[in-house]
């Protein structure tokens, strides 16, 4: 089997959007018929076998499994800490900063869903990470994630102070770090293994 997928014409999204996009892999995913229990363990949730992105990452099932469980705890463990909307905002900010149009579409839509602040989210997409996101807490999350996404990392005590001043507790600050850092992982996979397409 060839390593790369056959070239296909895609309709590239011309701008960042909250609309649902498709994603086309450049490297051949595993065939669903070839998946074994080891692969399903890596996929964690069996329906993910329908998704070509996850079937591609299933080529290294141990890494995929650990990555997926890291992701789920950072974004869905809501026993305490940062709200779901702000975690998704962190993901969207990292994605906007790194330039991952696909990741930004998914997580900006989630941020809007949980916050009902679609206009603030859309301004992040349209104007970029320097825009005013409407309140102190969102701007503090944005500043922290942009600083964390930069190379060299610029995240410092002033970002922690601003997050605390906006009302976040220690667990919420950890969630900002985790969600911003995690999208520096996710963005690089989605950007380098395939491309977004208008669906």
């Amino acid at each position: 089997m060839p390593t790369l997928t056959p070239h296909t014409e895609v309709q590239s999204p011309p701008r960042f959007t909250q609309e649902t996009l498709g994603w086309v892999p450049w490297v051949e995913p595993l065939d669903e018929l070839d998946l074994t229990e080891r692969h399903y363990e890596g996929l964690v949730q069996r329906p993910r076998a329908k998704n070509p992105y996850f079937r591609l990452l299933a080529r290294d099932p141990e890494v995929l499994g650990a990555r997926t469980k890291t992701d789920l705890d950072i974004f869905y463990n809501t026993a305490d800490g940062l709200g779901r909307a702000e975690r998704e905002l962190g993901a969207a900010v990292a994605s906007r900063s790194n330039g991952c149009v696909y990741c930004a579409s998914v997580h900006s839509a989630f941020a809007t869903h949980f916050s009902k602040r679609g206009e603030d989210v859309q301004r992040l997409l349209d104007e970029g990470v320097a825009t005013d996101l409407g309140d102190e807490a969102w701007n503090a999350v944005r500043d922290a994630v942009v600083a964390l996404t930069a190379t060299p990392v610029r995240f410092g005590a002033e970002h922690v102070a601003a997050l605390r001043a906006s009302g976040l507790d220690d667990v919420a600050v950890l969630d900002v770090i985790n969600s911003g850092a995690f999208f520096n992982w996710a963005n690089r996979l989605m950007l380098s293994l395939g491309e977004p397409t208008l669906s």
Partner: protein
Amino acid sequence: MDVIDRLSRIAAGSRLDELRAHRPAAREQAQATYDALFSPINAGAMSRLERHAVAAFVAALFDVPAAEQHYARLLADADPAIAAAVTEAVELGRGAGPYGSFGGELVAESQAGPELILTPPLADALGVRLTAALQHTHMLALHPRDSARERLQPLVDAGWSADGIVTLSQLVSFLAFQVRVVAGLTVLAAEGSL
């Protein structure tokens, strides 16, 4: 104590140890990812030496000192000659990111920046597979939005399989996460010591 704790100087029983315990699966599975990447069940698609070389290179590009030293030490223990070549490659590749090109209506947001160019003696020292891998890694670390289908071809031409490309991408991308968690926790840990 896991690798992130060690690199962030978090002691057992400390305030930061207790804080990390609020996200137990994230903590445990970040370490499980590290173990799967650096102690793989099967290193057929990407050798252990290749894993250590790419990790040392990308940790140095990200410029988080504790992580840079950790991965430099692992590579130096594995192969001092490759470690010396990677150190040279780091000097050629250091830069500030993220930059890169956009298409469509975003073209005005494009930010130019350097590509890694390895000298022929350095490419000889690294070999074809690591030369292609470090070039790809430089893009992924500093200008990931320059990713393109044709930029995978040099990896294929150098003998990287589909499985190998996935593991290489995961390794670089995981390090992008891990060093940022370390950077963030280091700030929080320093605050506690004031």
